[in-house]
């Protein structure tokens, strides 16, 4: 493990996973289709797992490998499966996603958030031990902010859910680099929490869709008891 070229290769692999992770976070903000949003989330989770495995080899930590395995199973496989089971295909087939802002504007704001993440994490990075000082922390925080931003600008239920999950991905991406001995119980708890979140939201969205015929959260702005004719008409 102390072999310098090997460590350098691992570091560059980890950095590459980080760069692509950042790119998927941007892409989740920008895509129009629900299906590609989900695919991007799967790609992002795979990159997170890659980074966890690389770091586990680098720091010789079984905990991080376990984190990687839990991520590999729960996010790319179980979460899409649950979403497919609970939601009708119509939700995925929709091409246009409502956004509060148009896409170029929201990408520029996302960019500003990524730069902000860099300045936010500078003091954190100065505080940690040198061997943990990696690109994961700023990229993870950027992923967290971008996920939160997705949640803010999207007006469609499933992409909003993916925004929450992307936030979690970002937090983990930063977390795995900061601690070698991340307790497995925490990771398991968060992973199962994520599953429950997906399940509950999926069922909720399904119910909304059955009642109203749409999952456009942006249109559900007024509470009315009598059946709202304009919403039904759609």
């Amino acid at each position, binding site marked *: 493990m102390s072999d310098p070229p090997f460590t*350098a*290769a691992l570091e*560059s*692999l980890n*950095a*590459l996973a*980080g*760069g*692509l992770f*950042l*790119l998927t976070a*941007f*892409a989740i903000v*920008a895509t129009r289709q629900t299906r590609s949003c989900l695919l991007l989330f799967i790609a992002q989770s795979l990159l997170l797992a890659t980074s966890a495995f690389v770091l586990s080899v680098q720091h010789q930590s079984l905990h991080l490998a376990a984190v990687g395995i839990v991520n590999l199973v729960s996010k790319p496989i179980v979460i899409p499966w649950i979403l497919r089971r609970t939601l009708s295909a119509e939700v995925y087939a929709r091409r246009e996603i409502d956004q509060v802002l148009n*896409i*170029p504007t929201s*990408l520029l704001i*996302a*960019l500003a958030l*990524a*730069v902000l993440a*860099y300045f936010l994490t500078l003091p954190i990075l100065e505080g940690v031990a040198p061997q943990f000082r990696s*690109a994961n922390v*700023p*990229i993870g925080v*950027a992923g967290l902010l971008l996920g939160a931003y997705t949640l803010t600008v999207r007006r469609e239920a499933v992409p909003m859910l993916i925004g929450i999950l992307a936030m979690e991905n970002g937090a983990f991406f930063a977390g795995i680099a900061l601690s070698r001995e991340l307790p497995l119980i925490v990771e398991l708890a968060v992973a199962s929490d994520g599953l429950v979140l997906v399940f509950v939201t999926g069922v909720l969205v399904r119910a909304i869709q059955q009642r109203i015929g749409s999952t456009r959260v942006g249109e559900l702005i007024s509470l009315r008891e009598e059946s709202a004719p304009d919403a039904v008409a759609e």
Partner: protein
Amino acid sequence: MTYRILANVLQVLVILLLSPLTAGVLNRLKEIVQSKRGPSVFQPYRDLWKLFHKDQVLSERSSWVFRATPYVVFITPIFVTLLIPVLTAYPLFLAFMADMVGVGFVLGLGGFFAALGAVDTGNPYGPMGASRTRMVGFLAEPVFVIVFFTLSFVAGSTIPYIVQKHWVNSPASFLEPSHVLLLAAFFMLILADTGRIPVDSASGHFELAMIEESKSLEYSGSGAALMKWGGYMKLLVLMCVFLNVLVTPWGLASEQRATQLLLAIPLVAAKVLLFVLALVVIESSLAKLRLFRISEFLGAAFITCVAAMVARLFTA
């Protein structure tokens, strides 16, 4: 001395003679992917031959711009060939005359004349295509600037030969996220600049939807041949910049020997073939974007490139 002159000449000849073949292979592979047979890979040569033997028809209303445009479009990629590493890893005579920004400007000159020539005759489709090309052009401009800015940030230079040396000498930095993201952004820029599928359909024959093609509608005979040939060369030149400088900077002649120089030709051809395969996959699996979605495509390229820069900040 003579060797260097020969190398330069060979470099130009390779671009000049192999660019129609590249276009032919691209078209043929695309047809094969769509379960058709397609024309022979040598069809572009036959087209050029046929067009050079036909008479040219010029509108009485057109000015010298219309007549000069084919030559400018044809010459500019050849100028660019002198600036970039096509076969050699060591700089040739004119290598330090201009950097990659200069390459973009020289190619931009060809595009500028093509747009002027399209407006010149008063054909209704020409100005439409020209104004659309300008729209794509000014949207691509910030991406273009930021790509080369990031490149000089990452590799320390924008002279193509020096950038190529940078990646060859430090394979560890080859997998850097900034490099990979930069590649993606540059690739998107090439797609937009050469009128490839998410931006424009190069094989479309519907005038109202054309962007790039409609500018050469009015040309006939040798003018049309030069315009076509210039277009093929522009694609190959951009591929060479992308492949030989950024993606696969290996396999070029590193010593001043004729054997190495000749060996570099098939290696470069193999790289170009791989790139063509990637283009075929993209062209056959994606749909053309609506005109006003192009800004989003190029916006995505811009963001990818800035992400490359941010990732560079993060990892450094």
